[in-house]
């Protein structure tokens, strides 16, 4: 790693101030950022740790029924604390491994927007709102491609509000080495319609599969997806699977997610 200072603010306000420094970078749980730093692929002057900010952790149900999860809440805490939203709890329980889940955070995952991370699919399919120190961003506007989000420099994900769907499930097909999602599909049936979000598969990061949504709006059954397929074009093609394979697996995982949600 390159040398840097580590700051541990206790409040969001202090964190935002600290992030105002030149070349400052936020550190969530660090489960992706620290390996990146080890490879010297990032060179912050100051790393601002968000793990000591009490106001950014915790899970509660809001008046509108949505689940509000602090940006600094760990995957392990979501896995046990989001019981009103089993699809999301299941997603959190399947991220990485127990040690990673004890450190990694929902805010960190969404800020990083790794194309094979699980949370982007959960947030997008839920129609979540990403709350920062400055504003509220709808998930549909938040994800902007690989490792790219609507976040501005120095903006911190303080909370994520997940509308709780009537039915939901996340199905992950693991890349054999990293155990990240080769393809992950989150299906959420809301009162106003079905949302299907896919991670791991596309060269452009997480996306909604609108044809599947339309079919599931007609009938929320796996059979409704029969005959639906995605084009291979634009899918990731690598050592672990071709673009055509990823397109195929997306359809399979979508069906399985619907079956699990029903």
């Amino acid at each position: 790693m390159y040398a840097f200072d580590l700051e541990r603010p206790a409040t969001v306000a202090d964190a935002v101030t600290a992030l105002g420094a030149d070349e400052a970078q936020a550190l969530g749980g660090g489960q992706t950022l620290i390996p990146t730093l080890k490879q010297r692929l990032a060179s912050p002057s100051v790393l601002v740790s968000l793990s000591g900010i009490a106001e950014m952790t915790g899970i509660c149900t809001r008046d509108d029924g949505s689940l509000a999860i602090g940006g600094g809440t760990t995957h392990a805490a979501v896995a046990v604390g989001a019981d009103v939203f089993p699809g999301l709890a299941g997603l959190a329980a399947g991220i990485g491994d127990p040690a990673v889940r004890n450190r990694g955070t929902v805010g960190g995952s969404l800020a990083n927007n790794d194309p094979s991370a699980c949370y982007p699919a959960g947030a997008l399919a839920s129609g979540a709102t990403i709350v920062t120190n400055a504003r509220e961003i709808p998930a549909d506007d938040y994800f902007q491609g690989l490792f790219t989000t609507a976040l501005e420099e120095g903006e911190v994900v303080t909370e994520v509000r997940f509308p709780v769907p009537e039915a939901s499930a996340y199905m992950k097909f693991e890349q054999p080495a990293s155990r990240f999602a080769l393809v992950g599909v989150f299906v959420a049936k809301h009162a106003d319609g079905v949302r299907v979000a896919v991670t791991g598969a596309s060269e452009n990061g997480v996306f909604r599969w609108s044809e599947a949504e339309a079919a599931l709006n007609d009938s929320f059954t796996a059979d409704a997806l029969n005959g639906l397929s995605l084009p291979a074009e634009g899918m990731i093609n690598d050592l672990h699977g071709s673009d055509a394979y990823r397109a195929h697996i997306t359809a399979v995982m979508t069906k399985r997610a619907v079956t699990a949600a029903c």
Partner: protein
Amino acid sequence: MTKVTMTVNGASVSGEAAGNTLLVEFLREELRLTGTHVGCDTSQCGACSVHVDGKLVKSCTMFAAEADGTDVITIEGEAAEDGTLSTVQQAFQDHHGLQCGFCTPGMVMAATALLKENPKPSEAEVRHYLEGNICRCTGYHNIVKSIMAASGQNVEPMAAE
């Protein structure tokens, strides 16, 4: 460099750490607790697993400064003062749950954390919990067996034949 203070294996310790000093570096180099190992640089192998405030973490993926004020347990803190092995440690010896020993500290820390969360795990639950701990020697058979035995379950049906 900043001063960090934490409780390690029951004793309060202090030392100097740079911003980029990892917890595992602090343990191994500053405290000379070399039982915690480093087997990869992508946070996957789990040889560096320790407990921080009772939770299993990878000490290669946490900065020493982030552990300031915490209670850390490493493999050196698992046996009793008189050297008596913990239940998990003893089960690993009884059931040949280790060969070269390099992943073993992480395995023991993971197993201990598992049994605290889930005192009677199934074989599948044990295997799933070890997702972040890689062993190259044992094929995991005897690690799984050791952990099941440490949980007080009968492992006779898991005998090799």
